């Protein structure tokens, strides 16, 4: 594929040095755009074949019955909505995504400011240390968290006992488990917010702060009237993007609790896996994961608005 398209580009470009007539210039432009399209073809094929087609196929699958040979319309969706356990999934997914993103954004914001105070070589070292959670593959670090939360060998509980407190069943009760998965996600994602916000902070012109300082603005006023407005865009886009990713998260819950205790920590993704792959009910699993779609589409719409603006700037 790649070889073929480069050749097309080559033959089009070979024409380029001497466009004598208007006709051949037109032809050249047309050839160039054919070559350009050819270079994009692998990408387009991949996106259409493995992203767009499966999305529509999921809609089709979700309307079949369990044996996948008769059409049942929206029955799967209606059935899911009537199940109390699925209500828990909706609740937990929203709680998980919103709480975790707020925590990540907040911690990331604080970290970015602390880092911004430190300049030069030191900053690289600190940044490197703080990025470690984000660098380790999530499934492996979640496994470590599981071991840290282990009911009988938990190192956290040992520390608590040592300090004179009682052991906590971290993954044993509903709310503990919910907090635990949110905490792990926050731990994993906060560094990403930190580097994004740090980049944004660096792009705020120093003169603004100088001017504000001369006008007698305090630290708080500088934050509210300069830093936040200047970072507004990047905060929005990071939060939206992270909401999408966190909402669709799979690894943490799957490994840490696998939905337990009593299905109270399942997210859409893990529930869809349990129903669709493990229990083998493909249509119902597809319908579970499609419940994410309206929420993700709404979020994506806002992200895309921002992205379109950027594209206009750079492809024009």
């Amino acid at each position, binding site marked *: 594929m790649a070889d073929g398209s480069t050749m097309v580009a080559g033959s089009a470009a070979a024409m380029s040095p001497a466009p004598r007539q208007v006709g051949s210039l037109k032809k050249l432009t047309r050839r160039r755009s054919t070559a350009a399209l050819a270079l994009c073809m692998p990408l387009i094929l991949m996106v259409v074949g493995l992203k767009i087609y499966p999305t529509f196929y999921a809609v089709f699958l979700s309307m079949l019955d369990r044996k996948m040979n008769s059409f049942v319309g929206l029955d799967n969706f209606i059935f899911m909505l009537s199940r109390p356990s699925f209500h828990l999934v909706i609740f937990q997914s929203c709680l998980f995504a919103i709480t975790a993103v707020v925590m990540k954004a907040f911690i990331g914001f604080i970290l970015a400011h602390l880092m911004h105070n430190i300049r030069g070589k030191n900053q690289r070292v600190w940044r490197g240390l703080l990025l470690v959670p984000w660098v380790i593959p999530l499934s*492996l670090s979640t496994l470590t968290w599981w071991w840290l939360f282990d009911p009988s060998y938990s190192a956290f509980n040992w520390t608590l006992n040592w300090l004179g407190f009682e052991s906590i069943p971290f993954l044993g009760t509903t709310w503990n488990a919910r907090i635990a998965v949110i905490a792990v996600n926050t731990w994993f994602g906060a560094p990403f917010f930190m580097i994004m916000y740090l980049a944004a902070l660096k792009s705020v012109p120093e003169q603004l702060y100088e001017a504000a300082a001369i006008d007698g603005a305090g630290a708080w006023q500088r934050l509210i009237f300069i830093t936040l407005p200047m970072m507004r865009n990047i905060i929005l886009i990071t939060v939206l993007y992270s909401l999408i990713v966190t909402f669709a998260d799979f690894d943490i819950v799957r490994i840490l609790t696998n939905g337990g205790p009593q299905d109270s920590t399942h997210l859409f993704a893990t529930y869809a896996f349990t129903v669709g792959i493990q229990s083998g009910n493909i249509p119902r699993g597809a319908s579970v994961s499609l419940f994410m779609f309206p929420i993700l589409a709404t979020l994506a719409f806002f992200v895309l608005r921002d992205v379109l603006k950027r594209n206009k700037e750079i492809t024009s």
Partner: protein
Amino acid sequence: MSGATATADVIPVKRKMGSLERQRLWALRGSFAALSVFVVIFLVPPFYMIMTSLKSSAEISAQKGNPWIVQNPTMDNFIYLATNEQFQRYFLNSVWVTALVVIISMTIGILAAFSLSRMGFKGSQLIASGVFLTYLVPPSLLFIPLFQIVGSMGLINNTWVLVLLFPTLAVPFCTWIMIGYFSSIPKELDEAALIDGASYPQILVKIFIPVALPGIIAATIFAFTVAWGAFLYPLAYLYSADQAVLTVGIVRELIRGDVFAWGMIMAACVMAAAPPVIIYTFLMDYYVAGLTAGATKG
């Protein structure tokens, strides 16, 4: 405002410090203190991962005293894994899958980014935005229909399925990064080359790739990270141990029944986490620059 760097230089000359400088010095100290707390919290799991990996099963099951510190460090877990055929298989699978995915993703991404940012054709903007939109369609929405699709292709429980699917996770963002870097190259550069009779492939290879090398490094690291750490697709589509990659291999195969050999599991995690950690240690600056370049431009 000469910035905090100046403050650091001023520290030795304490007498001359004004109140503003003193204030800043305290801000700096406060930042260090607060950051230290965060670093300690952030590094608890990796630290414990390494500590546990050095413990023997006996030390773990008969826990005496402080679990945070290893009492009798042993390399047995690492030696066992390094000579274990099963684990070698996971590691090798991860390596070749990741290598192929990185090559495929970067080829698709660079070609598309070059075309979208420079050659331009009807609908190229639509494609650029559409690609980003599909990046926002998460794998957890697609893994069930894809199960049917790869099933009909006969790729279930075949490691090659990952070579087919992982690029979908990496390519959109790689293309995105590359579009940003390519369009920051001045148009005059390739116009001059065109006038001198260079062909588009020559322009790409001789101008764009060398100039945008930092972006290429960033995108490559991204593709590597995604392919090395992905968990959902291999978990859903590979069920036998010989086809597994590191992530599922460790999570699913090493945890057997109720015998929790945590020392060995953690040693496996250390070995599997080492390649990305090493790569980031050396190339983090490129990656951070690539990641934040697009975001701060607007």
